[in-house]
């Protein structure tokens, strides 16, 4: 039965010699709906893994509370919490075969023998692992080990499923396959999942909700598209994808757009909420700019790299290097280093955040 998970004012700190507190997790508040796939995303050391480990019960909560459904779990030991975890290193028991690994938790629950066999076989079937059940972990490939780890967590039918960077040990191709598979299975059984990663494409492709963390705090909570297109802080804009930042001041507010005055001239930007004279930063994604041979907004191409799907440029424009990415490059139409180009900003793709955010 999928459960909601809520974190209320959760802090994790370590005392230092000087008596000050070192915060690993700082005032985290979260409401996770039952059956949703939620990702904690951030650079290493941002507190995402510590948060997950507090949910699992492996770290003591310094302050605040964590609830599964209506039940406060702070004082429930990790082995009695209704959540199972897929570990980064998989943490398969090397001395047990696949079947025994998956049956381990069920045995501890003291289920009847035939129930255990039935449940394990069912999950082996779902995960396509049937023919490997007699093998030990060392006889499996990375992807198979990953599936056993997931199977071992799933067979417990937990209220919450936790993932601690589970795909980081797989090669790039397999990672794509596994993330689709994890998402498919999560949807199929409708379980609440909390997933920790530092890989934004993983977060984007799998999640219902992405929580971006930085220095122990939540920077932004939103759907993948919100996080990408409407970042609320410079950190989020920079961490997710590539972004150019242009500082400016709001010059006028119109019905459907605002005009921001910048060094590089006036930019029309969709979105209100800012007043005239507000200091703002315009976030320009590389794909929000088109290059032409025109004569307005002229810059010089400093670097031009063919990437297959795109042609990536670094253009010097008004004393600043702007990263630009153009889809579908055709050899004759790309610009060489040193060419003068005109930058066309697409109004719909520009986004404004408060300056110094």
């Amino acid at each position, binding site marked *: 039965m999928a459960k909601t998970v809520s974190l209320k004012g959760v802090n994790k700190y370590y005392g230092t010699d000087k008596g000050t507190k070192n915060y690993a997790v700082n005032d985290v508040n979260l409401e996770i709906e039952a059956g949703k796939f939620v990702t904690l995303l951030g650079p290493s050391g941002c507190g995402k893994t510590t948060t997950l480990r507090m949910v699992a019960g492996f770290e003591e909560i310094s302050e605040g509370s964590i609830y599964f459904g209506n039940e406060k779990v702070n004082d429930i030991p990790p082995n009695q919490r209704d959540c199972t975890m897929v570990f980064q290193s998989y943490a398969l*028991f090397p001395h047990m075969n696949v079947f025994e690994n998956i049956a381990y938790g069920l045995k501890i629950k003291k289920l009847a023998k035939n129930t255990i066999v039935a449940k394990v076989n069912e999950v082996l079937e779902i995960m396509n692992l049937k023919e490997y059940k007699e093998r030990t972990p060392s006889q499996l490939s990375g992807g198979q080990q990953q599936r056993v780890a997931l199977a071992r967590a799933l067979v417990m039918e937990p209220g919450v499923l936790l993932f601690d960077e589970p795909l980081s040990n797989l090669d790039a191709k397999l990672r794509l396959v596994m993330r689709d598979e994890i998402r498919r299975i999560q949807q199929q059984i409708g379980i609440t999942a909390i997933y920790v990663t530092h890989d934004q494409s993983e977060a984007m492709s799998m999640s219902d909700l992405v929580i971006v963390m930085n220095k122990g705090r939540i920077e932004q909570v939103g759907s993948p598209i919100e996080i990408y297109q409407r970042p609320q802080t410079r950190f989020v804009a920079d961490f997710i994808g590539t972004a150019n930042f242009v500082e400016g001041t709001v010059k006028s507010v119109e019905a459907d757009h605002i005009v921001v005055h910048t060094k590089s001239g006036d930019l029309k930007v969709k979105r209100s909420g800012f007043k005239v004279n507000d200091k703002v930063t315009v976030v320009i994604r590389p794909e929000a700019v088109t290059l032409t041979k025109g004569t307005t907004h002229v810059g010089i191409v400093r670097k031009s790299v063919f990437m297959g799907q795109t042609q990536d440029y670094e253009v010097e424009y008004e004393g600043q290097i702007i990263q630009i990415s153009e889809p579908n490059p055709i050899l004759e139409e790309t610009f060489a280093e040193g060419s003068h180009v005109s930058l066309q900003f697409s109004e719909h793709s520009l986004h404004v955040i408060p300056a110094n955010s």
Partner: protein
Amino acid sequence: MNTMYKRFKREPLLPILIVLVSLCLIVFIVFPLYQIIKASFLTSDGQIGMDGYKRVLSGGGLSRSLTNSLVLAVISATLSTIIAYMFAYTFAYVKIPFKKLFNGIAILPVISPPFVIALSAMLLLGKQGLITKHLLGLDNANIYGLHGLVLVQTLSFFPIAFLTLSGLLRSISPSLEEASQNMGAGKWRTFVSVTLPLSVPGIANAFLLVFVQSLADFGNPMTIGGNYSTVAREIYLQAVGSYNMQAGAALAMLLLTITIIVYIFQNFWVGKKSYVTVTGKPTGQRRMIEKGPAKTILFIASMVVSFVVIAFYALVPIGSFIKLWGVNNSFTLDHYKYVFDLGQKAVLDTLKLAVIATPIAGLLGMIFAYLIVRTKFRGKKTLEVVSMLSIAVPGTVIGIGYILAFNKAPLALTGTGIIIVAAFVVRALPVGIRSGVTALQQIDPSIEEAATNLGAGRAKVFTSVVLPLIKSAFYNGLVNSFVKSMTAMSAVIFLISAKYNLITASIMAQVENGRIGVASAYCTILIIIMAIALVLLNMLVKWLSGTNRRTYYGKDS
């Protein structure tokens, strides 16, 4: 307070274990050592004074025993290290046949009773010795004294140095030597300028290991020391012979100080100097020396040493069947008959106490290791240091400490089996802890978290995941405790009583009475018991982990 109570309620096992384990350390290591310190500073009428130390340091027999021990230790350690280095170099660098033999020789002293070499030395080189009397025709050969001790200790202890050095030499990356040759150095130059400097920390380590072994050695000085008295022997004679506790305690303190200094030096200085991280895995493939004079010399030398060692060990079982060595060389079973008639009790007592001590030491070692590697609590560092430092405490020091500590209430344990078992356990523990710690450090902590996450409590995690994964370390710990207990001598010689006698003490008594044949029979029986026990232990551990693997629903599904 509240959170502490909550944590206790959640995990009562852990704090209970910590308290239990700390109590063991305090009662059986710290308290006896404290008693030695106290006794060493008391005069015979109970006043505080330096009488003990004055007696030891003012010249005379006691102070001579101290210099004797140091001289002996330096000579034995130097010779052992040289022989061991030659062995280890040959093992790692030269292509010769019979290499398996080296491993066998390295294990011999570990599993053999402490007197075997000393007994053979008497049989070969004593007054009636095979070589001295019958080959050379000497009438008054004397093996007793410094030269005998040097011979016996070197042969007994060089394998320990060999194990250290061969591990180190094998882990020197061959590419370093290839680089040296690539830059123009010849083989000899490469050895002198690269291989030898890289092995200096290992040489220092090997030297110190043997140095401490020699200092702490009790059995050999007792049997063939003759007039050459050493500290370990003198502590025993003072404490048990003349019941002069002050002098014994003061001597024990000096011995302990030396061994602890060496231990600290070894771990903190030599350890830091090491250029080579010993991983146990050979790095790359080394091109072996296949011909040339170096090969011939090393091959002959190591074969000669191997032959000598094997001959020394083989002689004891042979001697046990001979009526009166050198005088009446006819075959007899009398010595065994004697052991079965009169010595049965010692054999059974030893076996019984060792069988009790073995699982205690084995389990305790793993629990210690688990606490050290996997848990956090206040005072953990102290626990770790005390438990590891006890490896540096010589057996005789433990022995005199136990007499002082457990002779009177509240812990009047003298004469009981408990105190002997405790001594066995304390002596065996450090090796068990160390192998447990090494094994645990290789296990990803998330494997244990996974078990917890799937519902296992701490005890269940330990038995179902940790123990199976460290079972070879556990087995090593068990074997080590059993072997150590069966062959223990230096500590327990202080503790035997009419109620409990031990094989090693019986052997010593026979040697003292000149009944070498009976002593040899005892040794042979001891070796046979240990061989059988090792096989049984191996089967037991296999069977234990077997039940773990064969889960009832593994196969039929």
